[in-house]
């Protein structure tokens, strides 16, 4: 290719660039601030990905909003992509697709895969055919971040046969069903952080470079961490918000959070709720107001009595990471519970009688004493 004399400049260049690339990777994450718990994620993921195997593998990273799926995928990409012939990280797949359509998503994908800046390059061809034809002999590493519809997978990575031996495709999503229906059975479930790591992450944002936890903030930090219930997004948002604020400001923030959830956190969590249909939304609200930690059978019966298709509803909510079933009980993350209740409250802020559900004892007493409920 680079026909200069008998030397092989092409190989020399590859070597130079690879050396630099390796150095960049090994030095770019020395700031471990946001990476609490990453090594245990990596232990599981590396073995699921098993880079030495020559099959083509698709793998899902699944979990609730704000739990750190994207951070994990990015870290993975930085660690591994250098070992593949072609690689790309497609962020916000859902958003790009919703806003600009699936065609734009494909064009963006091809531009990245071929390192081509000119978006017009694919204007008159079937993108699916190009993907199918041109990567069959390449070992690729692809991350599709935040996927919410099958169509997005079908248009970019429909079949493993489209890619060369050893290729790996990682999909992050809140919806497990989406993965399973695309035949992705390797699914890594991202869980919330345990207490100790949660406190670590929170402190990294709330106190940054300080090595000693300032006097008077110990108990408040624990309160903040309890509120976030191990959700990395909430720990980060709260920690950053409280950074350099006074003790009194901490106290008042934490008190307010008990009644009014933090809007940045709610916004992220709400996306999952907005993607539900009316039945599922209602079931979610019922569970967040009344049925957290209740027996699944009991919840199912009551919801059936209310006229909801409880069986499929509960399954869908589980798949979309809004609830979990454990030990025969329905469990909902504290912040999702708070969001559900807040959504009900917002239906009619000043007029509880018009809300779908009433859960606040004060509201109920008030209404009963006024005798205005029919």
């Amino acid at each position, binding site marked *: 290719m*680079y026909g*200069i004399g008998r*030397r*092989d*400049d*092409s*190989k*020399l*260049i*590859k*070597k*130079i*660039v690879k*050396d*630099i*690339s390796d*150095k*960049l990777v090994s*030095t770019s994450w*020395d*700031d*471990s*601030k946001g990476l*609490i718990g990453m090594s245990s994620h990596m232990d599981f993921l590396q073995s699921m990905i098993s880079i030495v195997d020559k099959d083509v593998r698709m793998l899902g990273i699944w979990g609730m909003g704000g739990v750190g799926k994207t951070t994990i995928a990015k870290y993975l990409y930085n660690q591994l992509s*250098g070992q593949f012939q072609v690689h790309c990280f497609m962020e916000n797949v859902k958003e790009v697709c919703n806003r600009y359509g699936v065609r734009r998503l494909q064009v963006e994908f091809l531009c990245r895969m071929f*390192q081509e800046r000119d978006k017009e390059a694919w204007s008159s061809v079937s993108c699916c055919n190009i993907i199918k034809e041109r990567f069959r002999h390449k070992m690729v590493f692809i991350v599709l971040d935040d996927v919410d519809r099958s169509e997005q997978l079908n248009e970019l990575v429909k079949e493993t046969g489209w890619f060369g031996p050893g290729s790996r495709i990682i999909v992050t999503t809140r919806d497990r069903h989406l993965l399973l229906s695309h035949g992705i059975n390797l699914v890594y479930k991202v869980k919330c952080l345990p207490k*100790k790591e949660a*406190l*670590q992450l929170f*402190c*990294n944002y709330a*106190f940054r*470079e*300080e*090595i*000693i*936890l*300032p*006097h008077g903030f*110990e108990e408040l930090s624990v309160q903040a961490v309890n509120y976030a219930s191990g959700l990395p997004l909430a720990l980060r948002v709260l920690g950053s918000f409280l950074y350099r604020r006074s003790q009194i400001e901490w106290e008042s923030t934490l008190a307010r959070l008990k009644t009014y959830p933090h809007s940045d956190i709610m916004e992220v969590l709400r996306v999952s709720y907005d993607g539900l249909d009316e039945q599922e939304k209602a079931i979610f609200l019922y569970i967040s107001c009344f049925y957290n930690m209740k027996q699944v059978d009991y919840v199912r019966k009551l919801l059936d009595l209310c006229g909801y298709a409880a069986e499929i509803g509960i399954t869908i909510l589980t798949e979309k990471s809004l609830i979990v079933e454990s030990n025969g009980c329905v469990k909902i993350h504290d912040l999702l519970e708070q969001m559900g209740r807040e959504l009900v409250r917002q239906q009619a802020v000043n007029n509880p009688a018009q809300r779908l559900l009433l859960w606040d004892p004060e509201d109920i007493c008030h209404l009963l004493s006024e005798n205005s409920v029919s």
Partner: protein
Amino acid sequence: MASLPSSSSSSSSTVWKTDVFVSFRGEDVRKTFVSHLFCEFDRMGIKAFRDDLDLQRGKSISPELIDAIKGSRFAIVVVSRNYAASSWCLDELLKIMECNKDTIVPIFYEVDPSDVRRQRGSFGEDVESHSDKEKVGKWKEALKKLAAISGEDSRNW
């Protein structure tokens, strides 16, 4: 006073503008070796600073260029046949050596590294041909240091 649960000390966090600065002699390698090198950097998503203003250069290197050198994490110096004939290239090299980069990679392109180290042959003559003798002394020192760093010799490929 409780100690924080983590003592992860973040190193002095310099924000690098680019990943690599590449110093080279335009007339020798711009359209060949270096052009392919930049393509490969681009393909791998590595941001390399490219000095394209080669033709409108003045006598001394601009403050923008010095910023670019300082703002790059790594530096690659492509030492080709006529590298030392350009006072511009030699000044660039001097700046790179002064900046104490994390990593400097010399690429000896069709040039014998020992000629660079000892400034022998036509390479040595080129260095000496410049009139500012004080500068020449500094350049020779920089070249000697550069040649002592392990890099790549194109003749091995």
